[in-house]
C-alpha cells in the first residue's frame, strides 16, 4: 500500500494532466462516483459533517491496524472531495493519519472550490477523519 504522501503525489499528478478546470472537475466527479457505496444504515446523524450547503456522512472501521473510511455526500463535488481524502487516508495507519498535514490538497489546482470549502467543510471533514484515527489508536492501546 502506498503511503499517504505517495497517494497525494499521485493525485497531484493525475490532476496536472488537465489544462482545463472543467476537466479537473470531471475527474473529481469520477473519483466521487468510484467511492464504495456507503450503506444507508451507516448514514446516521452522528456521522454527519455539516458544511454550509453540502452534507457529508463519514464513517470508519478499524481493520488490521488500519483505518478504513466510508463516505458519501448530497452534492457531487463534495463527494469528489471526500473521495480524494478517502483515497489518501483510507487503509492507512492511525498514527500516519493523525500526523498527516495533507499539503497535497492545495496543489491539486481546484483552488476556488477548495477555498470556499475550507471554512465550512473541508477542515471539518479532515478533523473528523483524524478523530476517527485517534479513537482507534486510543482503543488499541
Amino acid at each position, binding site marked *: 500500500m502506498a503511503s499517504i504522501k505517495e497517494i497525494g503525489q499521485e493525485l497531484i499528478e493525475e490532476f496536472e494532466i488537465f*489544462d*482545463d*478546470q*472543467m476537466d*479537473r*472537475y*470531471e475527474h473529481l*466527479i469520477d473519483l466521487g462516483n468510484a467511492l464504495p457505496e456507503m450503506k444507508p444504515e451507516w448514514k446516521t446523524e452522528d456521522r454527519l459533517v455539516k458544511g*454550509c*450547503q*453540502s452534507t457529508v456522512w463519514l464513517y470508519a472501521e478499524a481493520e488490521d491496524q488500519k483505518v478504513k473510511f466510508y463516505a458519501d455526500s*448530497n*452534492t*457531487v*463535488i*463534495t463527494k469528489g472531495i471526500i473521495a480524494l481524502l478517502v483515497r489518501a487516508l483510507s487503509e492507512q495507519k492511525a498514527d500516519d493519519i493523525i500526523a498527516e498535514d495533507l499539503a497535497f490538497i492545495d496543489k491539486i489546482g481546484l483552488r*476556488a*472550490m477548495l477555498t470556499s470549502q475550507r471554512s465550512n467543510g473541508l477542515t471539518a471533514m479532515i478533523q473528523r477523519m483524524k478523530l476517527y484515527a485517534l479513537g482507534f489508536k486510543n482503543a488499541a492501546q
Partner: protein
Amino acid sequence: MSTETKVTAALDLAKIRADFPILDQEVNGRPLVYLDNGASSQKPSVVIDALSRYYQNDHSNVHRGAHELSNRATELFESARTTAAKFINASSEREINFIKGTTEGINLLAHSFGRKFLLKGDNLIISELEHHSNIVPWQLICAEREVELRVVKVNEDGEWDLEHFYSLLDSKTKLISTAWVSNSMGTINPVEEIIEAAHKVSAAVHLDAAQAAPHFIIDVQQLDVDFMSFSGHKVFAPTGTGIFYGKEKWLLEMLPYQAGGEMIKEVDFGGTTFNDLPFKFEAGTPNIGGAIGIAEAFKYLMNLDRVALQEHEDAVLELATNLLLEIPGVKLLGPRNNRAGVVSFNIEGIHPSDLGHLLDAQGIAVRTGHHCCQPLMKRFNIPGTCRASFSIYNTKDEVHLFIAALKKAIIMLK
C-alpha cells in the same frame, strides 16, 4: 417595468463596461462573467479614484476642525450627503444618514423606532421573503417590547399574499418592514400599495431597498415611504457604506442609536443632550472616505441615462429567464415576470452548489445557497437555489455564455 413600448436607447455598454476595471479579467482561463451582483456590485474607476484622491489630498477628521484639510474633508463629506439626498429625492439632507450597510440601517431603526414607539400589544409586519437582516432585528426588538411579529405569507410564485397582508394589518400595526425587491427571487413587491394601506392605519413603512437601489430610480417623496435603507456596496460604492433615510418627523422623535462623538451636543455626568439631525444618528468619526465614494457612485449613476439603463437590465434579465426556461428540469423561484435584477432557479436532481462550482470553473460567477433567506427556503422546501443577478454592465452575450456553461454543467452532473 414600464408598460409602454420600449424604445431601446443608445446605451454605450462598451463604455460602461470599460468603467469597471475588474470586469476585464479571466477566471479559470475564461473571461469573467460576473453575475453575483445581488451579493455585491463592482466599482467604477471614478469611485475607486475618488477614494484614492481623497486620501492622497484631503483627508482629515470632519466637523469642528478649524484647519484647511478638515474644512475640505467636511465639505466633501457634507456635499456627499447632499448628493445622497438628491439620489433618492429626499426633501432635506437632515433625512440622510450614512450607515455601514442595510443591516445597520435596520438595526438602527429597530432600536431607535422600536424603543420609542413599539408598545406592548402592538404588532409589526414583515414577510416570508425577507433577508435575515430584515427578520432577526425585528425578532429581537419584538421580544423585548412584547410586540407581535406578524409575517405575511408569499404565494407559490414568491409574491406577497396581499389578502393575508390585509388580514394582518390593523390599528395596532406600528411598522411594516419589507424588501422592495427580494434578494433571493427578484420579486418586486407592491410597495406603493403597502405604503398606502399602512398609512391608512397610521403605520409607518420601512423599505429594505438593498436590491432595489441598484436598479430603480428612487423618489422617497413620491413613494411617501417613512424609512428606507440600502447598502452602498450593492450600488457601485465601497464596502462599509450605506444610506438610511427617514422622514424628519420620525427622526426627530426617535431615540438615538449608537452613542459617542459627533451625535452629542453636551455631555455631563449629570446628563447628556444629543445633537441635531443628521448628526443624532451618526456616532463617532464617520466613514468619510466611504461617504465620498458612495456619493461618487450616485453621481456616476445619475450621469447615465437611467431609463435606458433600466430597460437594458430588464431586457438582459428577460433573455436569461427565457433561455433558462428552455432547459429541461429547470424550476424558477419567484414570479415569471415582475422581477428586478435576479433570476433564481434549481435544476431537478442537481444540487445548486454543484452548479455553482461548475459555473465558476467556466468563469461564471453566480451565488448558490439560501441567500440569507432560510425562512423562504423552508417555505418552498428547498435547500437553496442557484442565483444569477445582473447589473448595468452585464450583456446579452454574457447571458449566452452563462446558459452555455450551465448546460455543460448539467450534462456533467447528470
